[in-house]
């Protein structure tokens, strides 16, 4: 019996969310009295892989096949199922991100395993195998019991703090025999947004709504985001009016985010918007309308004109950063 974690690298390096998933897997393994293995796919160095030991990985299986450098749900599934069977894994963990969400369901169906998508707790073993997740786009939580022998979890990053420890993982090469069918999907073109913090991973987010009046006023939000090291987001009307690109839209029909800090500027706080952001640890609302419903969901509120308040906040952050360097 063991626990296995799928660790996806980004151009040869592991991101923080992968460390968090490995650490989560190690904790789950410990609670079940077993060990955790990690599966790494594609081109990534042994040194990088060994580093996963600092987050609790004892053994890492590595399928060093360059065709796996692009995420492909079929080939990844074959690799993960092969590794899980080799390790006699009873719990399989992937991240609840674009890759994990494409691979985990296939793996679950292949192994006839129940799946919890977007876990935000450790499994409660005293009641079977009960895992907490958000439902109704963050308006509520559900406690889901998996009853199959093998369990699959996609884990929501930014749920538990990452603690770096000591240790080095052993690396074991794993051979997986792929067929042509496994690579039927061919990648024609890749466009990556460089430089910016991806919204889904951002710990700090500055978001603008219709109250910003127009796209020409986004400069002050960009300044604040840059000063904080935050990602930018927006409400649905803003994306629908093409003031901002669609990938910045957060809310029930946009992205769901759970940053440590969400600063909402000129957003009234419709229930659909709140659904996408109410997993944020701290919410600051800046709005000139004291009746804006968002204030009810906020930790800190500023009633005032964004055009005055935001530059003042940016200055205050600058001053703070200089003092705390």
């Amino acid at each position, binding site marked *: 019996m063991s626990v296995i974690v799928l660790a*996806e690298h*980004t151009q040869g390096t592991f991101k923080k969310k992968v460390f968090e998933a490995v650490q989560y897997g190690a904790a789950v393994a410990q609670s079940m009295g077993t060990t955790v293995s990690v599966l790494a796919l594609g081109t990534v160095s042994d040194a990088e892989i060994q580093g996963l030991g600092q987050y609790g990985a004892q053994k890492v299986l590595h399928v060093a096949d360059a065709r796996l450098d692009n995420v492909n*749900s*079929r080939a990844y599934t074959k690799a993960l199922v092969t590794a899980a069977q080799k390790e006699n894994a009873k719990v399989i963990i992937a991240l609840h*991100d*674009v*890759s994990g*969400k*494409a691979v985990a*369901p*296939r793996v*679950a*169906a*292949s192994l*006839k*395993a*129940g*799946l*919890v*998508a977007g876990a935000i707790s450790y499994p409660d073993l005293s009641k079977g195998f009960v895992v907490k*997740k958000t439902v*109704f*786009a963050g308006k*509520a*939580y*559900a406690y*889901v*019991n*998996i*009853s199959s022998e093998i369990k699959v979890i996609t884990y929501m990053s930014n749920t538990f703090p990452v603690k770096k420890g000591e240790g080095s993982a052993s690396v074991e090469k794993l051979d997986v025999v792929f067929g042509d069918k496994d690579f039927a*999907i*061919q*990648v*024609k*073109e*890749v*466009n*990556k*947004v460089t430089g910016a913090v991806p919204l889904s991973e951002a710990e*700090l987010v500055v978001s603008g709504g219709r109250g910003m009046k127009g796209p020409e006023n986004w400069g002050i939000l960009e300044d604040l985001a840059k000063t904080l090291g935050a990602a930018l987001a927006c409400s649905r009307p803003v994306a629908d009016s093409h003031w901002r690109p669609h990938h910045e*839209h957060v809310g*029930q*029909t946009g992205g*769901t985010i759970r940053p440590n*800090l969400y600063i909402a500027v000129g957003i009234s706080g419709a229930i659909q918007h709140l659904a996408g952001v*109410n997993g944020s640890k*701290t919410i600051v609302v800046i709005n000139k309308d004291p009746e804006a419903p968002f204030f*009810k*969901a906020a*930790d*800190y*509120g*500023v009633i005032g004109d964004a055009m*005055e*308040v935001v530059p*003042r*906040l940016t200055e*205050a952050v600058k001053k*703070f950063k200089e003092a*705390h360097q």
Partner: protein
Amino acid sequence: MKILVCISPVPDTTTKIAFSDNNTHFNTQGVTFIINPYDEWYALVRALELKEAGVATAVNLVTVGKADAEPIIRKALALGGEEAIRIDTESNDPYVVAAQIAEYAKSQAYDLVLCGKESIDYNNGVVGGMLAEMLDMNYIAFASGLDVANGVATVKREIEGGEETDSCPLPLVVSCQKGMSEARIPNMRGIMAARTKPLKVVPAADIQPLSNIVSYDLPPAKTGVKLIAPENMDELVNLLHTEAKVI
């Protein structure tokens, strides 16, 4: 080319969520149900566009639900599609939903199966991937663009920090999101036509769930907002540092 579109009825986005029976059931009293927006705006409309362009020959809709799901599937038929299939069972285990659809679809030779990237009620987004595995098809998740020519699909999809364009021979399962197509509103002719379109009820296969929801919970209410004067942004920064500890 035959397309199957998976449709899920979900509570309207403005629904206030409440639970009954000691927090073990979602309280549907007074709740308006709609077609899951991702299924409707992106999967279904793109399928219809492909049919209108002469690429697809048929668009069928499928839902897994009891009789109360029928108004939703009729609404979907009002947008388009020749026929709908309702598999007569209810489950919030995504494995059961996928397996029921797979059981039906495996004998129907669909070239393309489309679903939304997730349903806005249980937010799993796993039915598409499970279906692909069960039907032994390729699967592309989070697609924002889809075209088909000569039996090969070209799909634009979201990847970590960007976008990728893939090509893949059919058959294929695609989960759809924003960018696929523009939302449509059904017209009167569509609504009238939908009334007489075939809606087949298929008995459910015997499939045991692998997971179940034990109970629900609502997020703790915020204790109350702390208001800060607009002149005093230093104080806000100070609170974010010392009290909230987020910067």
